[in-house]
């Protein structure tokens, strides 16, 4: 087989420029739509997961083994120096230290069982943006002592406002019940983000003192960009192996969010499949019709001494060129659309109303996951080639004499 058949295959497409243009545009439009959908989907997820992680959880957390499923103070981190060294070695700069335990919050009129999160006011903003969720009063500053921040719903239930005092009751490191007065300095509200109730925040120092945990912490939340999450996790797990620690990704802790994204993607893959089927049907039809119109010409090719394989490759190359042209145009169009809408943003507030419950900002900025782009391109090219297989096979099976006699 000579490579000239690839060139002839290309030239054959110029025989009916209108049909070629139509086929290429069909592929291109389908692909551009898919690329844009992926961009929208990936942008939405990126935003959603980013918000989720930056609200409270971070991308990764390190605890004593078993602390996440059973948060007792006895499972605290004794010495954090090796962990900080491992973080430094992994190139992670955005981490903070916390102390977490169960507590009872009591006001003059009511009590509420809550989760106490004590944080270092200086390093917390590296990992979360809790401070930005303060709707009344203020967030912690270095030097704050026995002060606390409550969610809006909790404050309402307890009947307290900024400046009032509440009592936090908890077991200390040795299991003794302890209680302290905390002054409410701020109220956070995140709409549906799950921080409005059941949560009380204090500075790390005060909580350590109250719980007899001098210098000790229970977890180290970390922020890393999504694309580095897996590598950093691997590095940390290796570096900290044998130290009775757990390195958990956000989705190890809260798998529901991850499953939601997977489900969304599954829908998109389904859609991809449907679009591909439509493209397949269209391209098969076009190629088959154009092949049947040229039977006589294929007879000439065979008679002149083209082998069957040569003819097969020639006809198949027609779908290759169609696919490549469609992909080039479709990717340009799709990426252009993603870039444009990423610049302006797509406002979903009219469509969805309050989107905070899903950790989604109302202004979605599409962002393309290159893996999804690659998969889509490969699938479209594959399907276009597949569409050419049958016509190519038919052409290559022709008998030269019968094909020449064909009118």
């Amino acid at each position, binding site marked *: 087989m*000579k490579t*000239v058949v690839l060139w*002839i295959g290309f*030239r*054959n497409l*110029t*025989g009916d420029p209108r049909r070629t243009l139509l086929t290429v545009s069909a592929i291109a439009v389908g692909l551009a739509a898919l690329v844009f959908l992926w961009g929208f989907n990936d942008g939405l997820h990126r935003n959603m997961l980013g918000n989720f992680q930056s609200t409270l959880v971070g991308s990764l957390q390190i605890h004593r083994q078993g602390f996440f499923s059973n948060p007792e103070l006895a499972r605290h981190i004794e010495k954090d120096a090796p962990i900080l060294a491992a973080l430094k070695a992994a190139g992670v700069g955005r981490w903070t230290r916390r102390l977490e335990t169960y507590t009872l919050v009591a006001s003059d009129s009511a009590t509420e069982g809550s989760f106490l999160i004590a944080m270092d006011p200086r390093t917390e903003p590296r990992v979360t943006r809790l401070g930005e969720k303060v709707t009344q009063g203020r967030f912690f500053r270095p030097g704050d002592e026995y002060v606390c921040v409550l969610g809006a719903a909790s404050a309402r239930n307890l009947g307290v406002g900024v400046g009032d005092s509440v009592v936090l009751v908890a077991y200390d490191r040795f299991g003794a019940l302890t209680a302290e007065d905390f002054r409410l300095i701020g109220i956070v509200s995140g709409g549906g983000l799950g921080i409005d109730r059941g949560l009380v925040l204090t500075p790390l120092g005060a909580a350590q003192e109250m719980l007899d945990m001098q210098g000790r912490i229970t977890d180290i939340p970390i922020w890393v960009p999504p694309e580095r999450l897996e590598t950093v996790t691997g590095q940390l797990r290796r570096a900290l192996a044998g130290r009775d620690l757990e390195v958990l990704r956000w989705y190890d802790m809260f798998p529901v969010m991850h499953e939601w994204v997977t489900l969304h993607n599954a829908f998109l893959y389904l859609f991809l499949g449907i679009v591909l089927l439509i493209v397949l049907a269209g391209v098969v039809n076009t190629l088959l019709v154009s092949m049947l119109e040229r039977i*006589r*010409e294929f007879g*000439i*090719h*065979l*008679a*002149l*001494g*083209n*082998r*069957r*394989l*040569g003819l097969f490759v020639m006809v198949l190359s027609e779908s290759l060129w169609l696919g490549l042209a469609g992909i080039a145009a479709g990717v340009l169009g799709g990426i252009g659309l993603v870039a444009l809408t990423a610049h302006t943003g797509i406002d979903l507030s009219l469509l969805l109303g309050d989107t905070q419950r899903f950790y989604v900002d109302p202004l979605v900025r599409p962002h393309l996951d290159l893996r999804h782009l690659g998969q889509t391109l490969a699938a479209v090219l594959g399907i276009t080639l597949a569409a050419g297989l049958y016509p190519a096979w038919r052409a290559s099976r022709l008998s*030269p*004499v019968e094909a*020449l006699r064909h009118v």
Partner: protein
Amino acid sequence: MNRDKRHLIEVRELYKCYWVGSVPYPALNGVDLRVQRGEFLVIAGRSGSGKSTLLNCLGALERPDSGQVRVCGEDLGAWDDDRRADFRLRHLGFVFQAYNLIRVLSARENVAYVCQLQGLHRGECMERADYWLEQVGIGYLGYRRPDQLSGGQQQRVAVARALATGPDIVLADEPTANVDSKTGRDLIHLMQDLNRRFGTTFLIASHDPAVIQAAGRLLRVEDGRIQGGGVTYRPPRPLGLVCPRPRRPLWERLRLKWREHRRRH
């Protein structure tokens, strides 16, 4: 070497039947034929007499039912499709009745294409194409596409294409059938001229008087047999011997059965 001593084409007892459903039509009924290098041989005969079938058997396009076909010293009998294709590419040039150019390619690209199939570089093939288009008298039309050429001009491109690979034999099946008689005469004179100048063997099937008149040697085919100019006389075989039922692969037989079944009901 071998080639020059022997005949360029040697055909012995060639039989070929076409089956339409279960009815056999004998197209070649015991053909014997020898052709020497450099001949300008015309095969004449009425329509349906078997000229095309004979040419197709010689051109490694069609498989005979029985008999021997030696072309350029090679026995084409048992060859598979790829070997036949390679043989056509290397040794044969074809001029068909009409409309036989690749329609998306210009005249010179049409001629160059066969050279490229032979594995020569594009540039060299283009040079050859220009040379041969010049030889057939339409060097100035190289950049036209077939639909921008007249029938006679297209046939000239086809002749150039047939010669561009340096074949041993050019097989032309009714080359003048689709052009007017003046153009037809010009074409046949062109081929005669090329035959004399380059020594290429021409086998032309035609019932056009102008072609018959130009023949270097003339053979007449009737009912699938060569009259007179053939080698030996053989009485016709009974139909059953001429047309053995073809052994088709199982799926092919099932397909035919199905077709027949559908035709009946």
